[in-house]
């Protein structure tokens, strides 16, 4: 480790890629303060909810929606957690090396998104002080409770993703320990047991772990999360064998869109045009366009089934989206949030001269927002019209729920920004 402490001048590429760690502008402090405000407000809002109860939210039972913005947020963040790690896995398995610069950008997004998903579900709990009961009663519940399956698989996915990120980052941490001697004690914690010859073993292990992670992605966003909804015959609009593929497509779509947005923002902020090349956005944008069109097809298949000859309860849920109280958000989501950006992205693939990086990033940003709205429209309308003969309810998130949802997003950006200051977000390669 002593040899590691020599401090050679990093080459130009390394210096450019370490820019977020080397330079701290005034804008950085402004950003941190700007993020702390909603994050702090979120802590206050949650504190209010903890001492006064979920009655402060607009969630109601039995008339109304017992699940709302928090659960939509949970499903959204679990979906978002698939992009980076999926890209990293694809790079290894399919040898798509041109996407390497955005791999870690997405891997970090995965880990932080999973934390935010866990936070969202904890906030939705009526008595989060009993959270340890999940562990205590796990053996009794896991046989029948799809929520227990969720907790189990999310913990495994989070653990595997975090360890994968750590293992693949170790060689860059050696460079960081050399470059930042004052912080070398910190990097040494992550370099425990390091030997220079470990890279080949890590590369081979990562290849196998990539397969495990891809399998977990399918089983999480195409399995245990949709099964919370799809296995319940008591909820019209949820009970469907299509739930798995439907959620999986949404997860991959929103995650790839988020990776495009984050990569685009970092590329602009740190002048990484030379490293995160337009081809990356072109490839990811085309894939996103196709997957969004496929998602629109799944919406069509779902809605047609609900409207053709389905039980009346299914038809009424569909009516809520088509002409009812959710129509003002359903149609803009479908036409402006999914269809228009998807057509723009696919058109760029057909006519390469139409391609624009900024346009691709903007289209991806719109798709990310649309996918949040879609999760909301999956969770809420069904709950407002249960099969049991209760009166029909209504739901619109309260200021407290919006504060918490916004605060969770701000906390995610805050964590990401702090990671950028301490760890290299793009693979450094050899020095």
């Amino acid at each position, binding site marked *: 480790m002593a040899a590691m402490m020599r401090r050679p001048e990093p080459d130009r590429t390394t210096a450019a890629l370490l820019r977020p760690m080397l330079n701290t502008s005034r804008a950085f402090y402004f950003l941190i303060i700007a993020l702390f405000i909603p994050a702090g407000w979120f802590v206050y809002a949650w*504190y209010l909810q*903890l*001492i006064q109860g979920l009655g402060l939210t607009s969630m109601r039972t039995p008339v109304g929606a017992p699940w709302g913005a928090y659960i939509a947020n949970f499903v959204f963040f679990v979906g978002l957690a698939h992009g980076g790690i999926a890209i990293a896995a694809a790079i290894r398995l399919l040898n798509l090396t041109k996407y390497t610069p955005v791999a870690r950008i997405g891997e970090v997004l995965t880990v932080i998104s999973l934390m935010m998903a866990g936070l969202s579900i*904890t906030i939705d709990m009526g*008595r*989060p*002080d*009993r*959270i*340890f009961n*999940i*562990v205590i009663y796990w053996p009794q*519940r*896991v*046989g*029948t*409770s*799809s929520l*227990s*399956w969720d907790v*189990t*698989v999310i*913990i*495994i996915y*989070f*653990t*595997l993703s*975090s*360890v994968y990120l*750590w*293992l693949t980052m170790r060689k860059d941490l050696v460079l960081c320990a050399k470059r930042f001697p004052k912080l070398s004690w910190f990097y040494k914690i992550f370099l*425990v*047991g390091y*030997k220079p010859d*470990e890279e*080949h*073993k*890590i590369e*081979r*292990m*990562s*290849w*196998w*772990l990539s*397969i*495990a992670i891809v*399998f*977990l992605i399918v*089983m999480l966003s195409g*399995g*245990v999360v949709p099964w919370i909804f799809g296995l319940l*015959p008591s909820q019209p609009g949820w009970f469907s064998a299509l739930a798995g593929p439907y959620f999986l497509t949404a997860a991959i779509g929103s995650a790839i869109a988020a990776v495009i947005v984050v990569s685009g923002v970092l590329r602009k902020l740190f002048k990484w045009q030379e490293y995160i090349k337009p081809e990356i956005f072109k490839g990811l944008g085309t894939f996103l366009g196709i997957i969004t069109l496929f998602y629109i097809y799944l919406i069509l298949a779902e809605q047609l089934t609900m409207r053709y000859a389905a039980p009346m309860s299914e038809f009424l849920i569909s009516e809520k989206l088509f002409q009812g109280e959710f129509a003002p958000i359903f149609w803009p989501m479908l036409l402006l949030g999914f269809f228009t950006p998807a057509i723009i992205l696919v058109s760029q693939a057909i006519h390469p001269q139409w391609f624009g990086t900024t346009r691709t990033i903007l289209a991806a940003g719109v798709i990310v927002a649309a996918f949040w709205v879609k999760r909301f429209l999956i969770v809420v309308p069904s709950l407002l019209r249960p099969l*049991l*003969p209760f009166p029909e309810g209504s739901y619109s998130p309260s200021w407290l729920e919006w504060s918490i949802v916004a605060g969770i997003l701000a906390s995610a950006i805050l964590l990401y920004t702090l990671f950028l200051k301490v760890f290299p977000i793009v693979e450094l390669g050899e020095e």
Partner: protein
Amino acid sequence: MIDLLFRLSDLGIPVSAIAAEVSDRQTMSGNIGFVVLAIIVGPVVILTIASMLEHPRTFRIPTLFIGSVILLISAIISSFAAAGMLLKLVIPQ
């Protein structure tokens, strides 16, 4: 279970044969979760073992890997306990 729920809700809905049948099946399939988790976790465990046995056969990185997995899972479970205790101080009991 469904039978009981209908009775508790006192909605005047007769418990149908279908509901009773569903109830029976649910009781019988009480261990379906173990099958689901075995299908999910099984391949992950096999692939993880494969990753550790892959050439070059050194035990240092696999040991670090297993150690960090155990450490992280323990940290998550401990954080559940810590969060629960902390929240008990905030939430009126």
